[in-house]
């Protein structure tokens, strides 16, 4: 994996993480900041091309494929690792830090994997490491949620593996380029990618588990899993028509359910679904502009979503509460968190001058160029909904609104610093989109700051705000939870199993009773025949072992001797 011109960032990160458990206090904190910097350093030195080839089972593995698409994701993953590490500096839980870094390493591994086997390995590693970020909250709810998360991803992993095996069998290669085979391999791999991209109805693991993660873990979670899936979709399935519609549906599904959420991080989690929907739509459109849009939206999304999760996390960290219905009036005590969160909010809502604007408008514009009227309208509705719940409803109910009586202190300096860095980046990208566009594969022929784009965006946003102010009393909420697809396996499944189970038990009892009656009669019969010592039916277990031997032998003999 190491050559003179290539040092795999995952390898650096994994090796560095192994040292982490040995350190304490300041040394550990310094190491936590140094590690992501080292990763960024290796990315800086990475030369385009293919590195780290290995032979494995007669296939050639490429552990390091460096091209522009991979680098876009590499850079942003490295950055968010740095931000997340700073945000988590105060946490004195090594397991969490180790898990977070290994999780980051595996996400980087997926992105640089040039073949499906390597990808699969890191894909699975990502699941195993990330689940600890949920479990380390150490509540029963989070354990159960983490367990469901694990099970669903385990199933997804098997689906992916099955797809890869079939793909290898049909094409004779495991190189990861656009997946262009017909038949089950195509669908299995796509399904596995869609599970990780949280495409409804395969999304419930995300909105179920992320709100139960640790405060700092959620930052990493929100950044990595779904975005590696977006990367794999861009690479493997550009221009798949189905994805256009699924993506657009995702955007609406996310915003609708976000409206119903009372937990602040669940609300934000539904907006991950919604935002990833834009990226999936872009992948489905498949034009150069749309794909650039997806990649850059993933880039900006990671930063502002991390910022939002950090803001919400800071509130939870300082108040211990996460329900909108229990928060309110915090602006006096946590003003910096409020302002920094708002920067994330206006970024996700795609206000001009902020990062979301320069990437989301690209996808919307690509849909317009493609003349997809319905898709365009759906995306605009979703963008109104995004503004509505992340930037209006959530901050309003958390920081403004009615006073909840809470008087927390401002979040610790490291949290604010991490949020500050993220906010600065959101702002910078919004002002100098050229920096982002320069990273993208291929020349980007798009300017977000034209009068027409600006006018449309501002009108949608401001009038959404107007509607919010006018209809404030109708905005849903209250101490409720809303059902989602996870109901199927949390309640529906168990109920079904229960019903089927009791049916089976009843039938089984009936069958056994009759069988036993017959058996008893048979035994009596045999005993009568064989006298007192006739133990054919009873002698267990040597008898039954020997009997089985005789049966198998008799089978083979009959077939072999008398038929042959």
């Amino acid at each position: 994996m190491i050559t003179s011109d290539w040092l795999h960032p995952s390898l650096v990160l994994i090796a560095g993480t192994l040292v982490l458990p040995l350190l304490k206090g300041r040394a550990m904190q310094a190491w936590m900041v140094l590690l992501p910097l080292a990763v960024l350093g290796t990315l800086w030195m990475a030369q385009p091309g293919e590195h780290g080839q290995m032979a494995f089972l007669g296939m050639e593995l490429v552990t390091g494929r460096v091209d522009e698409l991979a680098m876009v994701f590499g850079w942003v993953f490295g950055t968010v690792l740095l931000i997340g590490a700073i945000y988590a500096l105060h946490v004195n839980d090594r397991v969490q830090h180790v898990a977070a870094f290994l999780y980051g390493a595996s996400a980087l591994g997926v992105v640089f994997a040039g073949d499906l086997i390597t990808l699969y390995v890191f894909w699975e590693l990502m699941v195993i490491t990330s689940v600890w970020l949920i479990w380390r909250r150490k509540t029963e709810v989070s354990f159960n949620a983490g367990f469901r998360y694990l099970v669903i991803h385990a199933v997804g992993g098997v689906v992916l593996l099955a797809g890869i095996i079939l793909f290898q069998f049909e094409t004779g290669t495991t190189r990861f380029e656009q997946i262009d085979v017909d038949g089950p391999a195509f669908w299995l791999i796509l399904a596995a990618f869609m599970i990780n991209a949280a495409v409804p109805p395969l999304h419930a693991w995300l909105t179920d588990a992320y709100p139960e993660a640790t405060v700092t873990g959620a930052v990493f979670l929100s950044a990595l899993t779904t975005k590696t899936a977006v990367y794999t979709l861009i690479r493997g399935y550009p221009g798949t028509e189905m994805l256009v519609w699924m993506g657009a549906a995702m955007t609406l599904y996310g915003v609708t359910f976000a409206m119903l959420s009372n937990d602040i991080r669940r609300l934000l989690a539904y907006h991950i679904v919604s935002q990833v929907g834009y990226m999936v739509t872009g992948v489905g459109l498949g034009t150069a502009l749309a794909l650039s849009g997806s990649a850059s939206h993933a880039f900006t999304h990671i930063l502002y979503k991390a910022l939002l999760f950090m803001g919400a996390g800071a509130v939870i960290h300082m108040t211990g509460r996460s329900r909108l219905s229990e928060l309110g009036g915090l602006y006096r005590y946590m003003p910096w968190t409020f302002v920094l969160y708002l920067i994330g909010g206006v970024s996700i809502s795609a206000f001009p001058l902020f990062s979301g604007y320069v990437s989301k408008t690209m996808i919307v514009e690509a849909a317009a160029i493609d003349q997809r009227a319905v898709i365009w309208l759906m995306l605009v509705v979703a963008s109104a909904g995004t503004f509505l719940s992340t930037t209006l409803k959530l901050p309003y109910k958390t920081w403004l609104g009615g006073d909840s009586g809470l008087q927390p202190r401002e979040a610790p300096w490291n949290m604010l610093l991490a949020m500050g860095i993220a906010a600065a980046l959101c702002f910078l990208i919004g002002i100098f989109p050229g920096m982002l566009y320069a990273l993208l594969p291929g020349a980007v022929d798009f300017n977000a700051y034209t009068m027409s784009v600006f006018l449309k965006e501002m009108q949608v946003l401001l009038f959404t705000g107007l509607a919010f102010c006018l209809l404030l009393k109708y905005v849903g909420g209250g101490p409720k939870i809303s059902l989602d697809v996870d109901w199927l396996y949390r309640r529906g499944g168990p109920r079904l199993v229960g019903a089927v189970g009791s049916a089976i038990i009843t039938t089984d009892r009936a069958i056994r009773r009759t069988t036993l009656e017959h058996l008893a009669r048979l035994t009596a019969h045999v005993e009568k025949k064989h006298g007192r010592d006739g133990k054919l039916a009873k002698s267990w277990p040597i008898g039954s072992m020997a009997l089985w031997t005789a049966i198998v032998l008799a089978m083979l003999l009959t077939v072999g001797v008398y038929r042959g």
Partner: protein
Amino acid sequence: MTITELMPFSVLVPLIASLVCALLPGRFWPWAVTLVAVIVSAVIAAFTLPAAAQVTLSYAFGNWPPPIGIEYRVDAANAFVALLVAGMAAVALPWAKKSVDKEVPERQGAFYALFLLALSGLLGITLSGDAFNIFVFLEISSLATYGLIAHGSDRRALLASFRYLIMGTVGATFLLIGIGFLYIMTGTLNLADLAERLPEVRDTSTVRAALAFIIVGMGLKLAMLPLHLWLPNAYTYAPSFVTVFLAGTATKVALYVMLRFVFTVFAPDWSFVVLPLSTVLMILGVAGMFAGSWVAMFQPNIKRMLAYSSVAQVGYMVLGVSLVSVIGLSAAFLHLFNHALMKTALFMAVGTVIYQVGSARLKDVRGLGRTMPWTLTAFALAGLSIIGVPLTAGFVSKWYLIQAALDQGQWFLVVLILVTSLMAVIYIWRVIEAAWFQERSIKQPDVGEAPLALLIPTWILVALNFYFGIDTRLTVGGATAAAEALLGGGMTP
């Protein structure tokens, strides 16, 4: 001395050492003598494999030329299995010291003598080129094994040993009957000679019956479903070290004998035609995979769970054989090797738990993840291998098995293999959950981490699991050479 002349010593050294060992008093010297003998034997086996892969080695005892004299005839297939057996013994022995001291405190001389006898018996089976010799060595190793199992501290070990004795003897006698039929028909016992002479007489029911008897006999020793019933108890109640050793070797050697007869003595284009072997083995293999994994998911005792998992793993090997192709057979050989690696590691980890806690019940493992992290992590990592996660040895053999199945267009087998892998996830997970996610009850004694003497060999095996999961040249090369040696190059894949 050439390697041909040296080769018989891998059998002779443990055999002679066992006599010495039986007389030695105390706890240290029997173990030390055993260790030296096993290492010598393993080194010889290690030198034999590359030589045998080049050209078939033949050593005639007492300078009586075969087929009249007794011959050791070694090609890549035997050399591969012999190296596995001797190698596993060599890795297991350093681990044995502590564990045996605790579980078999007295008369260790006799214990190690039995172990050496079992080892030399197993090696004798693999190296011998003479059918009757195979039977004799089989009985030597089996008798020694019964004695070893009976050393278990639980009284049920006696029962398990007795039951194994009955079934093992039946199996060996079946083999003898088969050999007898072959001798009656051909007048020779030399395997190579048999292979030459059989084609003239193979259209008789006697020869077909011989094949059936040999398959059933070896199926018993191999613990192929439904002939596996002796195995779970034997593995559960035997001393940990015995389980560690047997799990990696005994069933593997039985599989080798079965393959040697089916493929070399009777040519596969005959044996798979007269009996519906392909179908029978496939059904039994798949049934074993399922039944073994299924039962394993519900076992309250980890050792027993792993024993049932072994039944399932044997199912994979039998499945590979049933595909009758070079790649299928390679997969079987690969899994034979890899399974030895992972099962030995798992049993070692469990043995270490038993050493510390005195029990392998799931409820006694609760909360141990925190107090014995190294042991339980080793278990979890070896568990990954048995599940078949990439980068582990288990993945490699399953990959080849799946390729072999796809090669024959047997799509459903792929599904079955993946489903049984998921079942493996469940039974391994149960241990992990107990170790890390459940609290130790107050009544249970607190225990610390196990001594290094137990941990280091376990971790070496875990490391090997990963090494052979990444660098597959040695295993895949060896397995393919073994498969080709058995198929004699005559069969097209």
